[in-house]
């Protein structure tokens, strides 16, 4: 197991956002976390990356308990994230944003190699390399956020709504890239409202409802589950 979350509870002030979540991500998997707005998907991601303090429960990454570890130290251990809302640094160029992704790395040659790989993966970013992050379109910012997360060479990549606000053609493209990244060896935990795409690409999935995991299974099982179909896939 690369990531194991046990009985995680999290509070926003007095409001309980997560009510004891447990989930597992195995090495090499793509795991999808689906659910409606406000179900707690982003909160779960922020707990894993360390941006939100946890009330109870544990997060174990690669055998180490990281529940109370600072966010920047989790990055060094191999947890990379493309956050919700992209989090592109508006005043930095595309290249500088990508270099920020490699902030914790010192292997110049490896960084240059990954930079070339990312620019190859997203030719659009290569065209805009000198442009400030804040001036990119939503789709370009999304590519930049994913590319930047890859620059850390994470062992576990957390993707929070990578398809949000993108045109259908771009959504298709982003998911193809996710599959390709996974095939090259990166484990992925994916949060999505686009349940159809996410589940058809994922090895396994979890369904989150109001801070609780209500269902889990392989991607195909969930895709064909009548309740999931009705609630998230828009099919009666």
């Amino acid at each position, binding site marked *: 197991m690369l990531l194991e979350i046990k009985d995680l509870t999290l509070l926003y002030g007095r409001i309980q956002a997560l009510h004891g979540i447990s989930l597992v991500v195995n090495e090499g998997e793509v795991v999808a976390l689906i659910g409606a707005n406000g179900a707690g998907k982003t909160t779960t991601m922020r707990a894993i990356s360390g941006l939100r303090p946890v009330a109870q429960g544990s997060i174990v990454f690669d055998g180490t308990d990281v529940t109370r570890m*600072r966010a920047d130290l989790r*990055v060094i251990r191999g947890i990379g994230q493309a956050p919700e809302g992209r989090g592109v*640094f508006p005043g930095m160029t595309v290249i500088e944003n990508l270099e*920020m992704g490699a902030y914790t790395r010192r292997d110049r040659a490896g960084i240059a190699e990954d930079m070339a790989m990312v620019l190859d993966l997203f030719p659009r970013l290569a065209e805009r390399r000198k442009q*400030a992050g804040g001036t990119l379109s939503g789709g370009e910012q999304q590519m930049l956020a994913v590319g930047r997360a890859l620059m850390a060479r994470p062992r576990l990549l957390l993707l929070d709504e990578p398809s949000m606000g993108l045109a259908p053609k771009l959504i298709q493209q982003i998911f193809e890239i996710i599959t390709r990244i996974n095939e090259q060896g990166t484990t992925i935990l994916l949060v999505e409202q686009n349940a159809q795409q996410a589940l058809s690409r994922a090895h396994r999935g979890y369904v989150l409802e109001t801070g609780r995991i209500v269902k889990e299974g392989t991607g195909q099982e969930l895709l064909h589950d009548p309740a999931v179909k009705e609630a998230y896939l828009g099919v009666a």
Partner: protein
Amino acid sequence: MNFDELVGNFPALTITGLEQGAIYALVALGYTLVYGVLRLINFAHSEVFMVGTFTALWTWEALGYNQNSPSPAFGPLLLALLAGLAVAAIASAATAVTVELVAYRPLRRRNAPPLAFLITAIGASFVLAESFGIGTARAPFGMPTLIKSETVFTVFGAGVTNVQLLILGVTLVMMVGLDQFVNRSRLGRGIRAVAQDADTAALMGVNKNRVILLVFVLGGIMAGVAALLWNVRYGYTKFNIGFLIGLKAFAAAVLGGIGNLRGALLGGLLLGVAENYAAGLFGGDWKDFTGFVLLVVLLMFRPTGLLGESLGRARA
């Protein structure tokens, strides 16, 4: 109003203004760096400057200079300047770091509201100034005349002195160095990342507290350099010397656009020059008055200052 004085002495007033403005600018960098990252006005920064003036003076005294010493030859002079610079920069940086660790970091850990930081900032400023006041019996201290002011060349009839060249030259070097560091180095990118989006910076592996310490160190070094230049030019210090200079440097930072490094330089120089024109026009008593009138008027038209905020937004 004395237009003849302003017009007749225009070049000289400009040069004096640039020289004073350079010192404001160096101090302003400390306000702007900390604000860019923490959105906090570090009111104790004026005392960071004050500590620099005293420690540079003590260094010179330790090297055997006093107010009656003759100006040294070039070799010993360079040594005295560099020793004073090093000690002032280190002492100012250490003071700035202490303020951060004692007055701000504990509050951040407890998620204190912004007003609490304002109070501890003012408190830290008082504690520092008063402890030097008590320790020095509130007396003014004169400096050894290390460099005898001599006119090196003239522009439009105004003499430019060796001291003025030193101040402008050192300021320029520090400014360019800091600008390059923030825009080109890995650590500088870390500073800009925290300034632009602290949460995402953490997701990139940036240690926020270390970046915060770094900006206090950088601001402290700049204030220490300003303190040395102040000592060389104005030749005295006192426990409350930081108050007015700190206030003007803060005004300069706001004038140029707080959070913007180049804005601090522009704001400092502009304030220095404007003050001196006002002194020429209305008399010396109006000098301090003018700077703040200028600030208020400018902010009415450009609320974010001349260059706007940039550590947080566009390129610094």
